[in-house]
Structure formats: structure tokens, C-alpha cells
């Protein structure tokens, strides 16, 4: 019996092989947006790999965290590279997630029958941001410490559950070692586990339904998924790998000073760029609107906007009839402009 035959009897892989051989990817003028998902997946895989390596040396205690990261940077062979790649790839992954969100939103890929794919994608978006937020604290440096203090304070503004949420996130009233150790647990155990489930389902559904063709975009043909599309996907990955290598080597991320909870907060404190639009918008709100706290209204608005975004497959009833409704296009453009404007304002603002 041949090896293929032996394997086939046990793994039944020929079904997959046949599926792949017949899978086609549509061609049209927006076909380039199909790479956004693959790009995000690539950065995620880099994160898993580099994250596992960092885990070998990282120690999640207030006494040792900062020193262990410094050890990784200074003493561990290629530790500097692994850490720099992990940070750069994390930022690029967030960027990839945003691009993928834009591509699928404006292409209306969420319409029937891909509602569940969209929901899992929404979950993955939240998880990615949670990865960023929890990972940022782990080096236990001054900036991370105070940024986490501000960030968890914003969580405390969520109506009704805010106070409880803040204590749950911090593991107490203040950002302490308890916060560090639960952020570590969330970052390396809970989020990866949930991601694996959601990402598995997301990718499975993408295979089941195939690539979505944008509404009202004429198809110019199709090409085989394997090997044509896969090869180009891999080409993109290889180029991105080179890009990450250049960034990680030439633009290192400074570790800064070890966090001192008793020190005053440093000036110029601002969150990571992907949270900046929310932070800036909250800062610009008046302290009080009528009798309600301004920040609470802002947080409520963001929660509402996020909910609407996740539920868009069920709101956009025109899309499943292959029709574009201006409401959703305009809402999307306004949201993108808002995010860009707030981010630019946040970057320029003297903190």
C-alpha cells in the first residue's frame, strides 16, 4: 500500500484536496482586498511564534517583569529580535485587522450567508485590541504602567458595570502586581484559547462559503485558489516578513524606565495609536452633558457604535438582495473619517 493510500485511509485528506483543487477565487477590480485577511493571519502567526519564545524568559511579577524583558533584550541570543518583531508585528496586525474590517464592511461581505463569519470577525477584532491592551503592560515600564491606569479608568466609565469592570481588570482598586499577573494570564492563556476557537471557525467558514464578491462590482473571471491565490498570498507574506525584519532591526522599541507606582505620572502620556481615537474623543467631550458625566456618554456611544457594527449583517437588509444602501456607505465613511481625524488630532495634541 502506498503512503498516500495509507494516509488516505486514516486521515481522509483527499476530500480536502479535491475541495482545494476546485475552489475558485473571483477576480474583479477590488480583488486586492482579499489579501487583508491573509495579512492579518500572517501577523497573528508571527505573534504566536515570537510570543512562545518570549514566554521562555518573561517573568510576570512586579519585581522581575522589567528585568526579564531587559534580559531578553540584552542577554538572550536574538532576544532583541524576537521582542522587536513581536511588538512591530502586533502593531501591524492591528493595522491588518482594521484594513480587513474596512474591506469586508465596504464590500458588504457580511451579507447572507456570511453573518456568522462576520460575528467571529467582530469577536477577533475585540480580542486583537485586548491582546494589544494587555500586552502593553507586560514590560512593566513607566509608560505602560500609567497608560494602563488611564485605560482601565476609562473602562470604569462604562455605565452600571463600570466600577465592577475596573476592579475586575485591575484585580483591585489600583494597578498593581495583581493587574500584571492577570493581564499576563489573559494575554498568554485566555485570549489565545478564545482566538484559536474563533479563528478556526472564521477560517472554516471562509472556506465553506468561499471569497465574497463585493456588491455591485462586476466579476472579470476567476482563478484557482490553489496554487494561484495561495502562491500570491505567500508572496505577500514573504515581503511582509522582510518589512518586519527591517523595522525590528532598524527601529527598535525602547524599554524605558521601570514602573514606579509612587512616582508622578510622566507628561505626554497617551495610549497606543489604535486606542488614540477613542481617547482623544473622550478628552474632547465636555465634563458634563446635562446631568450625566461627559466621559460616560462617550463610552456609551462607543459601546453602542461597536454593537451596531457587530450587528450590521442583520441591520443591512438591502445587502442580501445585492443592493447598496447609501445609509451604510455613508455611516462607514463617516466612521473612517472620524477615526482618522481623532487619531491625527490625538497625535498632534500636546499632552
Amino acid at each position, binding site marked *: 500500500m502506498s503512503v498516500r493510500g495509507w494516509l488516505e485511509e486514516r486521515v481522509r485528506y483527499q476530500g480536502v484536496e479535491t475541495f482545494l483543487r476546485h475552489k475558485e477565487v473571483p477576480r474583479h477590480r477590488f480583488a486586492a482586498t482579499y489579501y487583508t485577511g491573509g495579512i492579518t493571519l500572517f501577523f497573528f502567526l508571527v505573534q504566536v511564534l515570537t510570543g512562545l519564545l518570549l514566554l521562555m524568559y518573561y517573568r510576570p511579577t512586579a519585581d522581575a517583569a522589567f528585568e526579564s524583558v*531587559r534580559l531578553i*533584550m*540584552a542577554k538572550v541570543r536574538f532576544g*532583541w*529580535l524576537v521582542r522587536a518583531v513581536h511588538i512591530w508585528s502586533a502593531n501591524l496586525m492591528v493595522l491588518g485587522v482594521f484594513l480587513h474590517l474596512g474591506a469586508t464592511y465596504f464590500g458588504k461581505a457580511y451579507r447572507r450567508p456570511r453573518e456568522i463569519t462576520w460575528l467571529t470577525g467582530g469577536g477577533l477584532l475585540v480580542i486583537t485590541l485586548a491582546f494589544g491592551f494587555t500586552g502593553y503592560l507586560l514590560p512593566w515600564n513607566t509608560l505602560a504602567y500609567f497608560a494602563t491606569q488611564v485605560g482601565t479608568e476609562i473602562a470604569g466609565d462604562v455605565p452600571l458595570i463600570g466600577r465592577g469592570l475596573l476592579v475586575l481588570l485591575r484585580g483591585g482598586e489600583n494597578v498593581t502586581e495583581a493587574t500584571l499577573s492577570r493581564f499576563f494570564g489573559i494575554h498568554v492563556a485566555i485570549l489565545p484559547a478564545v482566538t484559536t476557537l474563533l479563528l478556526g471557525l472564521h477560517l472554516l467558514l471562509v472556506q465553506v462559503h468561499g471569497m465574497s464578491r463585493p456588491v455591485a462590482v462586476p466579476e472579470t473571471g476567476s*482563478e*484557482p485558489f490553489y*496554487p*494561484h491565490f495561495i*502562491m*500570491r498570498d*505567500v*508572496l505577500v507574506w*514573504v*515581503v511582509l*516578513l*522582510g518589512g518586519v*525584519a*527591517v523595522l525590528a*532591526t*532598524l527601529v*527598535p522599541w*525602547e*524599554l524605558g524606565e521601570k514602573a514606579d507606582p509612587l512616582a508622578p505620572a510622566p507628561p505626554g502620556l497617551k495610549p497606543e495609536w489604535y486606542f488614540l481615537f477613542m481617547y482623544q474623543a473622550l478628552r474632547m467631550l465636555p465634563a458634563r452633558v446635562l446631568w450625566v458625566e461627559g466621559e460616560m456618554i462617550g463610552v456609551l456611544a462607543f459601546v453602542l457604535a461597536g454593537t451596531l457594527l457587530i450587528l450590521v449583517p442583520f441591520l443591512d437588509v438591502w445587502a442580501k438582495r445585492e443592493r447598496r444602501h447609501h445609509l451604510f456607505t455613508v455611516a462607514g465613511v463617516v466612521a473612517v473619517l472620524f477615526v482618522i481625524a481623532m487619531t491625527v488630532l490625538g497625535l498632534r495634541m500636546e499632552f
Partner: protein
Amino acid sequence: MSPVLVRRGVFLAGGVALFILVLAGRAAAAPPPDSCVGCHENLGDRLSKPVAGMKDDAHAKRGLSCASCHGGNPARFGMDAHDRAAGFVGVPSPKQTPQFCARCHSRPEVMRRFNPKVPVDQLARFLTSVHGKRLAAGDPNVATCTSCHGVHPVRGVADAASPVFATNVPQMCARCHADPARMGRYGISTTQFAQYKESVHGQALLDRGNRQAPGCNDCHDNHGAVPPGVTSVANVCAQCHSATRDLFVRSPHKAAFDVLGEGECTTCHGTHNIVFPTDALIGAEKPAVCVRCHPAGSSGLAAAGEIRLRLERVKTAITGAETILARAARAGMDVSETELDLNEARTQLIIARAATHTAGLPAVDPPTQAGLAAAGRALAAGQAAIAELAFRRRGLIVALAVIGFVAVALWLKIRELEARTHP
């Protein structure tokens, strides 16, 4: 006697008794009348000034009155109060002042009632001071107790407004000692305060308010103020600079200065004008102080030059290491560990600088060697970081070459695939 008269008499007696009782009650509640204050506060000008000043006076705060020092009978009024029989003393003359204060301040049994730790040797020390000796010789122009401590009020020495509060002492001494009109007749120079203000001690005490730093009285004594003199000035410096003193005692300068009558510390560092010492103080060329005594070409000057050279070597090594480490840090390399070596080098440099007081290489050499070694380790770490940086750049180029090759190969393969699909 008629009943009417008897009744009147009883009323009268009752009224008088009541009046006496009220008076006695008031007398018991109020302090005994002090006619000094009562009169002097209304006399105006020179005669009422003491009354106004007494609210800040250390004696008044402890319950003493005018009569406690000036005597007399404050129960009487007008000039009757100035009762010589009751020990009245008006304004004591300068010659009387020390004994006037010493009536209490030299008596332990009196002073311990107020503060058991307060010294009672002020008069004894004053009599040994130049001020005290001149006073005894009949010179009324010298400083006595009130010249420095003030009068009406005499403030406590811990009162920051007191002229003898630590940070006020130099200015207070300078009132006389920087005045050429006062000092001219004694042939004493008046530059001390101007020099002291610019000195390392003066800047610490006057500019930074560091009360650990010495003022005039810390070297000259306060009540027993005299120039410390050649034989004892080194002991004065050693009160604070004891480690340096121990090093100096080992030097050949010790014996030589004793013979020459030089003041040890002051020979090189000066007195009122002691500036923060730099390495320029030692060496074979000006502005090194060594050249003042050691002639050109002498072995002493050669040793001084050699010591200076050792110090300069350590400094150069530290600067070199700092430069390369700063470069590595700017490029994102973690060189925080080398801070230990750099600090060690800086510490050894400090030890070596102190060891120059032995004026001999045997004491200077070990710390400079240790400093050079530590700076060398830091330099090596910096060089290793720069080399690592170059290695990373080369590694990046190699990695990019491999990645580029794979990318081009993939691209060619894709073109070939597409050519086959869409001929």
C-alpha cells in the same frame, strides 16, 4: 451711740471690706504690676524701644522681666523704681556687658532651670578671645555679647531671625569685619566675607542654606573667636574632613609643613577663599599649586605631574566609555548593565583624588588602576554593543537577500502559472 449711727457704721465697714476683697481678688489674678513697662512704653523713642523689642526676646518668653536683668523695684513708680538699693543697673557699658550676662549664663544652677544642656562657658571662652582680651585691655570698640546676639530682643540661636542663626553668622561678623573704618585701626584686612561668599563653604551655607557647611564660627569659634593659627588650623578642617586629614598625615608634606610653619590644608586650599577643588590644583604646571613651592625639574614636581597624569587617564577612559555607550544607547542597544562599571570607575576616581593628599603615587596608583580597569570594562561593553549593532545590520542584509530571493522565485513561479492559465 444711736442705732442710726451703728447701722451706718456697719454699712461703711461692710463696704470697705467688700472693696478690699475685690482689690485682693484682682491682685491675685493679675501679674504683679511692672512699672518699667508701664512707664517706658509711653516714654517714646530710645526709651520705649526696649519694651517693643521684648516680645521676641528669648528671656521674656521664659518669663523673665526687665528687672530680672536690670534690677530695680518695678513695684514702685517713676524714678523711684530705678532703686540702686534694689540692684538697679541702667545700660551696662561694653566693658560691663560680659559680666552682666554672665550673672546667669555662667551659672549652671541657674541655666539648667531653663535648659539643662545649655553651655555655661561663654564668658570663660570670651575672655580667651581676641575680642575679650582687647576689652579687658580697655578697648571699648570690640564685640561683646550684645554686638552679636542683639539686645531687646535677644533672640534664641535657633530663631532664624537671630543674627547668630547659622546662615546669618557670616553677614553678622561682616558688619564689623568687612568695614575698613572699624578694622583699619587694628590692621585687619576686610576681604574675608567677600572671599567666603564665593568659597565652596559660603556657597553651601549662604546660597543653598546647608547648615552643615561651616560659617565663620565653625573654624574661629564663636565666644572664643580667634584666628585658628598655623598649628591648629588643620585640626579645625579635620573636624569635617577627617578622612582627608588621615591621608595628609601620611604625606611627606606633613613633616615639611611642620618645619616650615605652613598651615597644612590652607597652604594649598587657602582659607576664606577655599574653592571647590579641581584636578587643576595638582600637577607640574600652573595653575597647579605644587609649582608655588617645588622648583621646576625637581622630583617633587615630577611626582605631582605623574599623579595628575593618572587622574587624567582615568577621566579620559571614563569619558571614552561614556561616549561609546551613549552612541550604543541611542541606537537602541541595552547597555544599562555597564552603568555599574562606569559608577565603579567614577568611585575609584574619587578615591584617587582623595589619595592625592598623600602626595605619593603608592596611594594614588591602586584606585587609578581600578578605575581604569572598570572604565575599560565599560568601554569594552560599549564596543561590543556597537559590534553587535553592526552584526545585526549585516544579518538584516543577509536575511533580506534570502527573503528577496524567495520573493522573486515565487513571483516568477506565479507568472509562469498565470501564463499557463491565461495564454
